[in-house]
């Protein structure tokens, strides 16, 4: 069986490894099989259109958010949006300052990162540097389970189990608060931070560790003084992607954090995040085309720009790691 496959492989114009040189772009036979018949061209066009759907999706998101936000900003000035400290579009005394929603988002995200960063980093160091190969193979996918749980389920846990539990230890903790959902969100983004950090730590060349050992450093010293600084870009990318995930997370905060947009840093009080506000308006019966309706697109645009910027930074950091630029 395997001899046959090598035979066919070497016949195929210099493709010695049948799997890695599968790419038709590289095949010397490519030009021979360039589309000739009309049906071939139609098929190529249809497949190309499928590829373009993803581009149109992005364009669609941008156009929808910008168009509806333009309607919003024709009535509410950008100065008010970024300057006012109150968000009360549904009250008679209307204020359209994004800060309370942004503060709610940043507060829950900060709590989530405070939970996920230490745990995720410890898990990553253990998996990459200490765990036996077999344990690593089992533990890494098991940890991923945490990211696969539907967020509505996490929201239920935060509201019904975690908050009542926390109320026993934290005086003054409201039934809806930032702390409970923040902690649960931390559990949710833990695999993102752990898994990507582990990749970064694992990719640090063995020679660096060996050099540290040769200088008499112990393993812990090597990990903290040599390996972690070398993997810094990759770990940074992991954290930023975790933050981006937490900012865009919706159901946990919509269920358990409350619906009161307020500018506070107190994790015990009810707050509202940008995503939870969009849910709140979507559930209500706000007529389309009104200013109140358009607020969700303005908030959505802010959310889009925020996550896009974070993802772009993370992408650059990761590319630096892949190119070996971190060293």
């Amino acid at each position, binding site marked *: 069986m395997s001899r046959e496959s090598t035979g066919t492989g070497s016949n195929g114009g210099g493709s010695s490894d049948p799997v890695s040189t599968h790419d038709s772009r590289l095949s010397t036979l490519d030009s021979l099989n360039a589309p000739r018949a009309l049906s071939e061209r139609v098929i190529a066009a249809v497949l190309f259109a499928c590829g373009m759907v993803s581009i149109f999706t*992005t364009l669609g998101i941008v156009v929808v958010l910008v168009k509806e936000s333009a309607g919003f900003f024709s009535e509410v000035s950008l100065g008010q949006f970024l300057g006012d400290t109150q968000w009360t579009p549904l009250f008679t005394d209307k204020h359209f300052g994004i800060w309370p929603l942004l503060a709610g988002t940043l507060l829950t995200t900060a709590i989530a990162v405070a939970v996920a960063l230490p745990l995720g980093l410890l898990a990553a160091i253990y998996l990459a540097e200490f765990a036996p190969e077999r344990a690593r193979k089992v533990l890494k996918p098991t940890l991923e389970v945490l990211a696969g749980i539907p967020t509505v389920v996490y929201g239920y846990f935060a509201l019904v189990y975690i908050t009542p539990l926390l109320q026993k230890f934290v005086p003054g903790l409201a039934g809806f608060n930032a702390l409970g959902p923040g902690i649960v969100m931390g559990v949710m983004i833990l695999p993102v931070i752990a898994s990507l950090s582990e990749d970064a730590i694992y990719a640090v060349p063995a020679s660096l560790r060996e050099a540290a050992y040769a200088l008499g450093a112990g393993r812990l010293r090597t990990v903290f003084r040599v390996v972690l600084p070398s993997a810094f870009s990759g770990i940074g990318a992991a954290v930023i992607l975790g933050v981006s995930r937490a900012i865009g997370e919706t159901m946990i905060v919509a269920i358990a954090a409350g619906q009161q947009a307020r500018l506070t840093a107190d994790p015990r009080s009810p707050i509202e995040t940008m995503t939870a506000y969009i849910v709140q308006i979507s559930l209500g019966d706000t007529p389309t085309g009104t200013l109140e309706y358009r607020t969700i697109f303005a908030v959505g645009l802010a959310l*889009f720009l925020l996550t896009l910027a974070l993802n772009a930074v993370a992408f650059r950091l990761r590319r630096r790691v892949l190119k070996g630029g971190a060293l």
Partner: protein
Amino acid sequence: MSLRTSPIHDLAMRRAELAPERAFQAVGILAIVLPLLLLLWLFGGALVDAWPRLGWDFLTGFPSRKAEIAGILPALAGSAWLMALTALIAIPLGLGAALYLEEYARPSRLTALIELNIGTLAGVPSILYGLLGLEIFVRVVGMGRSVLAGACTLALLLLPMVIITSREALRTVPQSLREASFALGADRWQTLRRIVLPMCLPGVLTGVILSLARAIGETAPLITIGALTYVAFLPDSVHSAFTALPIQIFNWTSRPQAAFHVNAAAGIVVLIALMLLLNGAAIWLRARLQRRVYW
């Protein structure tokens, strides 16, 4: 050279029998095990709470103002409609895009842009897909708040994942087989249809099922496009209004009465069971795929 096989590493390991390092290892293991134990405890709690409600009546009942007799049949039917339609839309689009990128596209700025864009889309919060669906499918195309609009929205949400897994499946088909087919005079589409697609299909399906397992729990985009929270009928066409299992769970969770929270817990048990079922199907398919050898 892998670090783990390095003799110098072994040497370092041997002199590493020190208390602080052992303590650090224990902390590392705790950092992994504790969150998992927390999750297990939460699920245990939900299962215990849900136990009295779990039964045939719950699965076949309609929602009600009385928590004790409320059921999830419309939610289950809605989720089934959604998943079937989402798969019908996402598979051809995702597989088509993957085929284009793997088999047809030549390196160009546009190809690079498409690839970069797929990565970007994977990072867009799911609720923004909901805003897209609300504006495009519900309003501009005029689908209304229907199960079709929901499926279109979810299909776009899944597209990056379906494309990425389909590309991986296409890459497992050896180039030598394509070349053999070309040598026999087949053109590119014949080769794809007769050789490449049949071989990569289990891999593609595995990816699609895993994506659906994720989609079945998606709540935010469906709320945004206007899925109903109280539905006392079953969807009878793609234009029907609908609810879905995660929406029903959300609805029950947001009620103050504890009796509805019990219903939410029961809904969660059913939802997780469905997800496990889908994941199990994917694992089974993958195992079959690995056993089958064509070349």
